[in-house]
């Protein structure tokens, strides 16, 4: 990669890339051609097929309405334990990506300088040969290849990992905001190698430390339904939600009480509450004794370090509120403490400890240990050692994750020095725009699926579905591409990829599931069955007489589920271990609250947040999601900034008007939303990136929040800014 490319100018050139390239037009013609083929029948025949939503790790089951074989609308799959017939905004918008008029029609190689937008359509033979030849020349030398993808638990992700590790690659996975992010701290506390599963639905009082409950927490659709039922269910009192969060987020607005505490101080409040419970002797010590070894040491440390006055001084929460929160928690019938998936390890430790003090483990409305999934990743081989050398070949599986990956420090320079960057994305998005070789895979509706959904219920699941429509363009199946390339390279790579296609891989997975003689196809009686499993073990539905028949039934229903889980697993495991130990609480932080240097030119502390629906690269090919931005107060289709009433008064603006936000490195116009209760001196900016390479709708977003600071700076900490009325 000799052409100099910085992140900034690739964004600039990105705009030209789409405008100059013929792929968009060809794509439109080809889709129209596919449409004509389908329309030739013109019977208006309606058909429904199941698929899996791949917009996030929740992997909800979807039903696709097909008219003459063409997808018209996505609905939730009523049989799926996660979606149960419902579907979120992002999930529904996925059908727009299928019809993206700027989709890639087939493989292409870059022929001009980087970012110039000069691509040449090539054949699949040429494309795979190009990649294979380059891989051959690395000769499996460790670290010459970097493979990046979003983390997922699936047979396809296994194959991806195995193939690239066989090529001597380092395999980089990004973790989603799922319960998997809490796995390490959960295992450290309980010794259970499975995710924690939070029973929000049956809790009566939830104290949330930054958990975006109504936005996208762990498994978003599941959480939304659980929240609805937590709030209002017949026969029990309304659930009460208290949100502890620095910003007045959607969840904070929806909560019954919002307590403004920045993320780095929330841990102090948790221990402050624990200290009150211990000091006032409001916990059941006898019940805890078999499961907790260091209660006395913990009590000593917490009660001496976290006195109400000190907690109040460190967090800004009045003493009386700290005392009230503690007393409300213990007097609630089923209290539950939850945290954001990306909370610091100290906060996760503290919140889980508080849950245990409250007796929340293994009870309805508390925390269960999810059953370890029946599918365990077959991670053959290990990552090549990090030699510090820059990779020569970089391959992206999920270009949608490019943005979060780009914040890893070594990726951006590596993009500038690598010889070959390959994108497997079906879309001409940001990752594709920095690539030298485009190997577009099928979109979700054209693909086979077998994936373990993000943990949300204690039982086990695997979402499985066939393609609902044949490929509209000359895209290929990911496993097929990997197989072709591996065979060309030969050696360990060829040995690592034994599957000819995703179809074969999913077929094998179905056979394995059938052979377990556990669980069964997704079923509408799941909920009832799940409740019954609390009392009796094992469940097997005789969906068909043969294993083939069972596999067929699973793929037709959209997945496999086994609602069985071991009730009381956490306590049993802790008893076996002779109890757990709470980690030592941290020393009360004394640093000043403002981690950013403000001056007279830039007197405001700006935080950024990612609005719901923008987590997939600004959703470049789902126009409806741009319309949802900032509703109901801000203008859609662009960034907005949240101000306290005091700050708004200083520049004389009202909600809906515009301000110029200026940092030391740039400026941006954004619409204003005034938020009551927001701390003066703090502003919050919605992270709505401009994606000039993302298709016609994404190119409409011209105000890029990254003009204010580098993306990693925006994502990791506050930035000093000033605002002026436009």
């Amino acid at each position: 990669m000799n052409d100099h490319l910085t992140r900034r100018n690739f964004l600039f050139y990105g705009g030209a890339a789409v405008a100059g390239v013929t792929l968009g037009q060809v794509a439109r013609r080809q889709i129209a051609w596919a449409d004509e083929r389908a329309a030739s029948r013109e019977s208006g025949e309606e058909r429904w097929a199941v698929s899996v939503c791949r917009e996030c790790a929740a992997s909800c089951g979807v039903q696709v309405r097909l008219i003459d074989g063409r997808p018209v609308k996505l609905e939730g799959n009523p049989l799926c334990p996660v979606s149960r017939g419902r579907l979120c905004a992002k999930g529904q918008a996925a059908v727009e990506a299928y019809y993206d008029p700027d989709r890639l029609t087939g493989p292409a190689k870059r022929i001009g300088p980087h970012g110039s937008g000069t691509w040449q359509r090539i054949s699949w033979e040429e494309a795979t040969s190009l990649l294979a030849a380059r891989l051959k020349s690395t000769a499996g030398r460790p670290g010459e290849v970097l493979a990046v993808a979003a983390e997922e638990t699936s047979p396809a992700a296994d194959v991806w990992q195995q193939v690239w590790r066989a090529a001597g690659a380092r395999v980089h996975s990004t973790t989603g905001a799922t319960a998997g992010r809490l796995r390490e701290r959960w295992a450290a506390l309980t010794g259970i190698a499975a995710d924690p599963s939070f029973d929000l639905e049956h809790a009566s009082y939830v104290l949330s430390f930054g958990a975006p409950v109504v936005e996208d927490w762990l498994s978003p659709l599941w959480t939304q339904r659980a929240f609805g039922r937590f709030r209002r269910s017949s026969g029990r009192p309304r659930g009460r939600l208290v949100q502890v969060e620095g910003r007045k987020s959607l969840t904070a607005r929806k909560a019954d009480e919002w307590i403004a505490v920045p993320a780095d101080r929330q841990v102090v409040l948790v221990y402050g509450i624990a200290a009150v419970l211990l000091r006032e002797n409001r916990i059941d010590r006898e019940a805890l004794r078999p499961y907790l070894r260091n209660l006395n040491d913990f009590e000593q440390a917490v009660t001496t370090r976290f006195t109400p006055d000190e907690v109040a001084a460190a967090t800004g929460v009045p003493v009386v509120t700290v005392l009230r929160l503690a007393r409300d928690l213990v007097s609630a019938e089923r209290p539950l403490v939850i945290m954001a998936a990306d909370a610091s390890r100290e906060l996760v430790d503290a919140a889980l400890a508080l849950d245990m003090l409250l007796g929340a483990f293994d009870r309805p409305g508390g925390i269960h240990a999810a059953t370890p999934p029946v599918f365990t990743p077959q991670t053959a081989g290990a990552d090549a050692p990090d030699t510090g050398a820059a990779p020569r070949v970089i391959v992206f599986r999920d270009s949608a994750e490019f943005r979060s990956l780009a914040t890893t420090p070594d990726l951006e320079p590596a993009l500038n020095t690598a010889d070959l960057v390959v994108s497997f994305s079906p879309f001409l998005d940001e990752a594709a725009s920095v690539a030298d070789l485009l190997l577009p895979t099928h979109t979700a509706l054209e693909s086979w699926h077998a994936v373990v959904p993000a943990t949300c219920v204690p039982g086990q699941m695997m979402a499985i579905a066939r393609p609902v429509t044949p490929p509209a363009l000359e895209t290929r199946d990911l496993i097929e591409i990997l197989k072709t390339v591996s065979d060309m390279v030969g050696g360990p790579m060829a040995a690592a990829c034994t599957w000819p296609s995703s179809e074969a891989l999913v077929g094998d997975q179905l056979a394995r599931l059938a052979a377990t003689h556990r669980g069964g196809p997704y079923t509408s009686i799941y909920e009832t069955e799940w409740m019954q499993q609390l009392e009796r073990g094992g469940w097997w539905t005789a969906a068909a007489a043969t294993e083939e028949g069972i596999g067929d039934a699973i793929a037709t229903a959209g997945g496999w589920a086994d609602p069985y889980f071991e009730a009381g697993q956490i306590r049993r495991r802790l008893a076996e271990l002779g109890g757990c130990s709470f980690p030592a609480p941290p020393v009360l932080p004394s640093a000043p609250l403002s981690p950013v240097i403000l001056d007279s030119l830039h007197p405001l502390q700006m935080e950024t947040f990612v609005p719901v629906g923008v987590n997939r690269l600004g959703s470049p090919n789902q126009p409806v999601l741009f319309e949802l931005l900032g509703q109901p107060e801000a203008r859609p289709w662009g960034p907005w900034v949240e101000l306290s009433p005091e700050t708004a008064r200083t520049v004389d603006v009202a909600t809906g008007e515009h301000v110029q936000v200026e940092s030391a490195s740039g400026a941006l116009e954004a619409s204003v939303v005034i938020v009551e209760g927001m701390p003066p001196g703090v502003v919050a900016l919605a992270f709505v990136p401009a994606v000039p390479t993302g298709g016609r709708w994404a190119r409409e977003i011209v105000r890029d929040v990254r003009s204010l600071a580098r993306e990693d700076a925006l994502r990791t900490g506050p930035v000093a800014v000033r605002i002026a009325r436009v």
Partner: protein
Amino acid sequence: MARWGLVIDLDRCTACQACVVACKHENNVPFSTPATAAAGRLMTWIQLVAVETPSHGAPTALPLMCQQCDRPPCTDVCPTSATYLNPEGIVAQIYPRCIGCRYCTNACPYAVKLFNWHTPEWPESMAPLKNPDVSVRPKGVVEKCTFCHHRLMRAREQARADGRELSSEDYVPACVQTCPAEAMVFGDLDDPNSEVAVLAASSRAFRWMEELGTRPKVVYLREGE
């Protein structure tokens, strides 16, 4: 004959806007651009609006669509009877009759009747995305939420084909079907045993701008205890 109504529990609603997307796809409502949105011409039959609701201090995001009034101000002013209250309580809109005078958009206190200032357009590749059950409205006519009336017609046809009476379970609008937090309940308000009728009679129930006497059949349940 049923009198169709919708209850939205604001205590459950998470303002996720899944209903907005469901409606858009179901009813062939065209996409906007930043320019059309900035001009206040965003086409959407259901939209969140920030309102002050009873006994809740902070503004609440209220999903607002045609309130299907029993005394609709819009029908009274329509010179061509393009919009009228049908026997099942749905405020219907006959597009070929509409002359685009926009009297109804002005008369509607909820501002949920939308005028087509432009010919709706979709990219060529997106043509198949359109729902064949719903006609696309041309430039110059007014459109709005119909409680997914086409779904009612389909459900009625299906019931007839099955040789049975139409039941409430046969018919739900797209927004209700998708609502992740199960905040929307649809059904026959005249059936005292229906969930929708029971909820509409709850102490939390209120109708938006009910003081105007429009008698909406969209009923909201306020947040809080």
